[in-house]
């Protein structure tokens, strides 16, 4: 269904992304999540709600956006920055195909580096495949899908993708999302929490959105972000020589 062009782009993207020195960064947040979970588990905290706090607040709201930011901005952004994107774009490949291939790779990598550790951490924290463990796993899968669309769009729109993405994750989601209830409606972190909570039913996750709101808004944001990314990529231009 994806076509030879998509497969070529995806294969090159996986090699380029995993071959960069940056690649080891992808694993760090997930590894930290696992280490903290194991430490807490061994420490037997008295507060019974600690698994929801570590899996939700830390896992879905910190590890998830950070990892997706690094991966989502590098699958296409790195190529745009160093100019090698020209080789890809000077072919008749339709621009939406480029975005789709990059997006699939970023989503799959984020699932591997965040959703899987999140599931393992959930199992360790709750002692099995509990509703909470499965809930945060599903939330992390959804987060991988939505965040990467947003971060790929940012990487096509601006050359300062990491800074803009960090501002979004820290200021919008972190600060405004906590203070202004309306900001939660446009917060990817809240979508994944809402989806996670629909399975986990755990008030300690602090999910603010219902499942239907989270799914509808998440789908909408993903679609809009990918369309913008494809349109902006079609207008990719080369800078002239320094005058």
């Amino acid at each position, binding site marked *: 269904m994806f076509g*030879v*062009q998509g497969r*070529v*782009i995806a*294969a*090159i993207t996986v*090699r*380029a992304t995993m*071959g960069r020195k940056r690649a080891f960064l992808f694993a760090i947040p997930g590894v930290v999540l696992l280490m903290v979970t194991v430490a807490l588990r061994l420490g037997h905290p008295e507060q019974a709600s600690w698994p929801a706090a570590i899996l939700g607040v830390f896992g879905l709201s910190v590890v998830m956006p950070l990892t997706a930011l690094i991966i989502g901005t590098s699958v296409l952004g790195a190529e745009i920055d*160093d*100019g*090698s994107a*020209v*080789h*890809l*774009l*000077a*072919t*008749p*490949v*339709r*621009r939406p195909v480029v975005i789709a291939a990059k997006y699939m790779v970023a989503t799959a990598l984020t699932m591997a580096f965040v959703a899987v550790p999140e599931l393992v951490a959930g199992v360790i924290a709750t002692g099995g495949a509990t509703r909470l463990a499965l809930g945060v796993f599903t939330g992390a899968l959804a987060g991988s899908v939505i965040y990467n669309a947003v971060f790929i769009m940012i990487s096509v729109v601006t050359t300062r993708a990491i800074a803009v993405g960090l501002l979004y994750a820290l200021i919008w989601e972190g600060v405004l999302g906590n203070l202004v209830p309306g900001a939660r409606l446009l917060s990817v972190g809240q979508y994944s929490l809402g989806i996670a909570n629909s399975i986990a039913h755990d008030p300690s996750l602090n999910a603010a959105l219902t499942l239907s709101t989270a799914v509808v808004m998440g789908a909408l944001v993903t679609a809009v972000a990918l369309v913008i990314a494809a349109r902006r990529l*079609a*207008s*990719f*231009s*080369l800078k*002239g*020589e*320094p*005058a």
Partner: protein
Amino acid sequence: MTAIELDQVSRWYGNVVAINGITMSIGPGVTGLLGPNGAGKSTLLHMIAGFLPPSRGSLTVAGMASWHNPGIYRTVGLVPERDSVYSFLSGEAFVRATARLHRLADPEAAARRAISIVEMADAQDRRISTYSKGMRQRIKVAAALVHDPQILLLDEPFNGMDPRQRLHMMDLLHGLGEQGRTILFSSHILEEVERLSGTIQVIVAGRLAASGDFRAIRRLMTSRPHVFLVRTSDDRQLGASLIGRPAVTGVELTGRGLQVRASDYGAFSREVAVLARDHGIRLREVLPSDESLESVFAYLVET
């Protein structure tokens, strides 16, 4: 058939005009886009290649607008100036991947053919990161040729090449032009286009300064008066014999050496060495003292 057609094309960035009302048509054969750095060659080439929209004017490549039209890359191949390629791939894998992006029926055969054109078969299995500058340039040309395009655009293809690699690339482009393809390359060094006959378009400060047969423009450029600074083991004696040559119009002894005005660049360059040898004089330095490209191009604009 005209492959590339520009009609009153301008491009500006804010208040800065990079390209100012250029009209030109480029047909089959090799055409050089010549001009000093910052003249707007890359801007022009990027617009032709579909990677920059003109601010005004019309521009067609193979009869189609190139901006927002990836379809043109079926007939156009582009060799960008920047040397960033997927350097973790082998040369062969890079060219084959490009062939697959073009959805060619037999990507392996197309890659083999393109790699043999640029004579890179021996190195095709090495990673691009191990390639020299000239090899990278050649593998980029192979990738741009893999779908057998009628039009090939090259941005500063000779940059950073050693003389041997340069000759090889010139022969390659010349051969491609002979086959009836339209080859357009940019360069800021006159001597680079020496072996490439055909037409040149000279761009100075965003305008088309000269256009036409390479030899005629080359003559214009080389027959202008030149000033050289020559340092030798015996300035006075060499000066005396130089003034007897028709190519030399003036000689002056200065504290820094011998200042020679010549009417013919080529003739002077050949004769000075012969004269020095015949008189047993050692040449320490022969410096063209007004050879900045800007002065050459400025001269051209004035004529």
